[in-house]
């Protein structure tokens, strides 16, 4: 009568009853089987730690991302720079335009014209953002938080511009649109910065 495998395994792992050990001491067949089980355990322990399956999804992500973004990243960046520069020229032209020195002397008319220019600048920057395909990009939650923060600040400005009470003076409107253009410009830059971030390149060019 030889021992069952379970009893031998228990003995190997130091969990067997005393009579099992006594039997093995007097039984060459069971002793040989025990030695075999110990050898298997040693071999298993010597194997390298099994890793997760190859990161196939990452490879797919890289291929898709590289295909989708490819050289377009460069074009988008330069288009953004061109648009921002054009907006800069428009705003700078406002600064340079002859205007009355005080509000009483008719600065209100200048404000109307400035307002139109600022709204146009805001429109142009929005167009750049809409072409920047943010949602197809790898974003760290830190960068995403930065973008979301800027969006919230713009939303607050918009809430004031669109608020239920009209009542904004021209000057207040100009101030808010100035803020909006500056925030939009920051957002365009944030989109551009994340397009060139290490996180993005890690996926695209690994």
């Amino acid at each position: 009568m030889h021992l069952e495998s379970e009893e031998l395994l228990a003995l190997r792992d130091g969990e067997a009853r005393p009579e099992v050990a006594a039997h093995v001491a007097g039984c060459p067949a069971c002793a040989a089987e025990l030695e075999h089980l110990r050898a298997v355990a040693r071999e298993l322990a010597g194997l390298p730690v099994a890793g997760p399956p190859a990161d196939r999804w990452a490879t797919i992500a890289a291929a898709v991302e590289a295909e989708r973004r490819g050289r377009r990243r460069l074009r988008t960046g330069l288009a953004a720079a061109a648009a921002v520069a054009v907006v800069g020229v428009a705003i700078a032209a406002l600064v340079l335009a002859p205007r009355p020195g005080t509000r009483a002397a008719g600065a209100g008319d200048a404000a109307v014209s400035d307002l139109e220019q600022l709204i146009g600048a805001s429109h142009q920057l929005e167009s750049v953002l809409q072409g920047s395909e943010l949602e197809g990009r790898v974003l760290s939650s830190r960068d995403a938080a930065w973008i979301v923060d800027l969006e919230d600040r713009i939303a607050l400005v918009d809430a004031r511009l669109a608020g239920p009470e009209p009542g904004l003076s021209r000057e207040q409107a100009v101030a808010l649109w100035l803020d909006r253009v500056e925030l939009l410009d920051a957002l365009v830059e944030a989109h551009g910065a994340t397009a060139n971030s290490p996180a993005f390149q890690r996926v695209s060019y690994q």
Partner: protein
Amino acid sequence: MRKAIVSVVVVMFLALAAGAAVEDEDRDQLPSEVREAHEQLREALETLREYYKSNWEEPLLDLDAHRVVVKRELGDLKRPRLGVVVTGSEDPAGARILAVTPGGPADEAGLRAGDVIVTVNGREIGSDSPSHALVEVVRELGDGATANVEFARDDSEQVAVVTVREMEVDNEELEKLVQMDIESGELEGLAEPRELRMRILEGLPEHGEWFVPRGWWKLELVSLDRELGEYFGTESGVLVVRGSDDQALPLRGGDVILSIDGRPVKGPTHATRILRSYEPGEKLSIEVMRKGSRQTLEATVPDRKEHSED
């Protein structure tokens, strides 16, 4: 000033020329050109701001007035909105969109500045007080409702389906943030340009990131597109490219986040919006697709300052 204008024009032509010959450009040149363009625009804006400050009889916003405005706005965030700024339009009669809030409901639905909103769910907006009319109709719809927005673009009539919603901002945290801005004494409007500019130049967010626990900063996300969606067996969701450093947030590379506490996740910025809305110590459950099967992961939001690096 004239020198500044000339340099802006030079930058513009450089950028346009580079845009035409993009295939031959050195990638390394891109960031400095872009930076320069942004810098020029900011200088121009700053000069205009200074002009207005020195020519207006009354200061735009003194701090006390500003506090009142901020308080009112914070209270007002709790109304559903489309996320547009409009003005009256006579032909066609309606609300001409001057601005679309980035990331807002109208932006997501594809509305653009220049479009004229004619009706919302069949109700005519009219040209008399379109702002007021829109606020009222959207308020009646309520948070999360969908609205059929009929609008004119160029010469065609189109319809956008917009899901109106309250702003997903944390009022309490936002109030603290604005209070910090106020106390710094430099705030002009609701945005703080100078501080913002420093943050951008350094490439380091200071306020926005404050809402997201530090241990989560390295979490990297990307929207699923069709090809990736097919591979992962889900049509929607956000792919985790890299997990966070925080053991308490058990997301791993290759997980697809489907929803957080039942809220479907639309993209990386939307996921971040949801994640940052929790307070330290709060628990959240995240539904993910992991290795082809749906699982629900539990996480506890760590202290915002906790991190593993320094």
